[in-house]
């Protein structure tokens, strides 16, 4: 396969009547990366995914999936998809369900015979292979749905809220699977509300608001960018505060605390040394990393994007 980007969109737009669901999505996702798609409810995340998968026809704009236009269903042979609120023919057993979807991927029986047990094992559902899906718990359904998305060894997997409804063990399982996919070079497009999850698993994230990409950034860059440090200390003076400014910015006194932003945590020992030399009593130095959640609020605001 060519090494064109996994996803490439240009001003992808969707209107439902007068309502604009996605205003103009311009995005590029490289092969092999785990890409987080973040935004408030109603920001157009699910509609965007649906357009990429051919479920919803874009009103305007261009997009390519694995280098092929969206109309070309053959690209979907290399795509896996776990829809949000995954529902299926619940009268099928777990193994029958995987067989059905394997057949829809045009996989032959020989391959399915090895692939189905592999996947059941991967999502820890081997003991339930002959049990009807209607007897499954929400977490089990989500896991069999995930197995379905991986049947064809996809080049790209779309996961729409994959951990919703999962208990901590299930969430860990999904996280491990995403890691495994990355190590195999599979592109993962992750739509999730659980920012802590995204923070752990994703290489890059896009923030969406009102159906537009507001910001795209590497997760490491986002999180390493700024660290707020709170120093609990007695006996500091404004002159000392000025001196601290050489290691960071926004230095200010907050009661018995000094609060400042530093670029690198390596500055902390130097700051400590300086304070001790100036005979300031230091009780604690606490760096507070800016979480993805803080960043999310900062980027998309608190209005919920509506």
């Amino acid at each position: 396969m060519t090494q064109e980007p996994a996803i490439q969109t240009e001003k992808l737009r969707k209107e439902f009547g007068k309502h604009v669901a996605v205003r103009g999505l311009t995005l590029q996702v490289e092969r092999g990366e785990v890409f987080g798609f973040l935004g408030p409810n109603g920001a157009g995340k699910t509609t965007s995914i649906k357009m990429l998968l051919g479920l919803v026809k874009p009103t305007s704009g261009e997009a390519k999936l694995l280098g092929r236009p969206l109309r070309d269903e053959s690209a979907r042979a290399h795509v896996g998809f776990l829809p949000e609120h995954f529902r299926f023919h619940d009268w099928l057993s777990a193994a029958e369900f995987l067989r059905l979807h394997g057949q829809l991927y045009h996989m032959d029986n020989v391959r399915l015979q090895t692939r189905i047990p592999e996947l059941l094992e991967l999502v820890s559902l081997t003991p339930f292979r002959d049990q009807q899906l209607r007897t499954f718990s929400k977490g089990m359904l989500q896991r069999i749905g995930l197995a379905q998305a991986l049947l064809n060894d996809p080049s790209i997997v779309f996961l729409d809220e994959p951990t919703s409804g999962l208990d901590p063990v299930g969430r860990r399982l999904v996280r491990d699977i995403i890691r495994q996919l990355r190590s195999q070079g599979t592109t993962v497009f992750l739509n999730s509300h659980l920012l802590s999850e995204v923070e752990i698993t994703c290489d890059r994230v896009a923030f969406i608001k009102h159906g537009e990409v507001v910001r795209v950034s590497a997760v490491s860059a986002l999180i390493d960018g700024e660290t707020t440090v709170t120093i609990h200390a007695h006996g500091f003076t404004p002159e000392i505060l000025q001196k601290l400014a050489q290691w960071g910015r926004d230095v200010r006194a907050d009661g018995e605390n000094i609060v400042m932003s530093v670029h690198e945590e390596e500055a902390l020992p130097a700051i400590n040394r300086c304070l001790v030399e100036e005979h300031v009593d230091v009780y604690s130095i606490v760096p507070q990393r800016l979480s993805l959640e803080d960043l999310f609020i900062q980027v998309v605001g608190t209005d919920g994007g509506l």
Partner: protein
Amino acid sequence: MNTILVIARLTFREAVRRKIVLAVMLLGGVFLLLYGVGFFMIQQSYQGEVMGVTAMRAQYRQQANYFLLLAGMYVINFLAIASGALISADSLAGEIQSGIIQATVTKPIRRSGVVLGKWLGQAFLLFLYLLLMGGGVVIIVRVFGNVIAPNWLGGIALIYLNSLIVMTLTLALSSSFSTLATGGAVFGAYGVAFLGGWVERIGTLVQDTTATNLGIFSSLLLPTEAVWSKASTMMSSPLLNLLGVNPFSAASEPSILMMVYAVLYLLLLLGIAVRRFGQRDL
């Protein structure tokens, strides 16, 4: 494996697993049992003197049995049409609403394969249904009444065509509208066609051209009554057809052209179903 066949098999298996097939076959069996017992009892009552003359009695008996055969087929026609609507009303609309369809159509398949597969699976179910019901009535009438309908195979085939027409109409509507709206529209259309058939029959009897034309118009809208009329004339005795007075038969036999129209109508609906489902957002 071909997408159409995969989906057709799925549709069939779903009907079996959800015990829809079982329920329909059981009810069908109950109908056949009642019909068979009734038919048998009537044969018994023939033993008594009815018309006095023995030769006349045999003739009368045969015509009455033809009449009873048509009565059975009339009910089967209605049941087949209702089954056609019922098995397909929820098939697309239900899966769209529940979201089941999303994991299916995002596979490397054409959406037309999903529609055609569902159609094929449902057509097979209806085929089995008519095999049981139509075959049952034909056997009962043959065994107990010693009567074979002139063209029973052609008649049952036309009843099958009727159930396919309604099933396809339902599928076409179900690709755009909700299950409930689809069901309402289909039964409304069937009601119009049914009434139109009667208006045409009465119009022909009293020689009112307006009424006859109204009936023909309703047949164009949904040709199920015309197809049934053709089926019933094929299955009734020449004498009954000559008299033209039985309530199950048309005053005049619909033309072959009308049957061609019915088949084209079905194909057009199938085309609409494929097209609508292919274009809509899911």
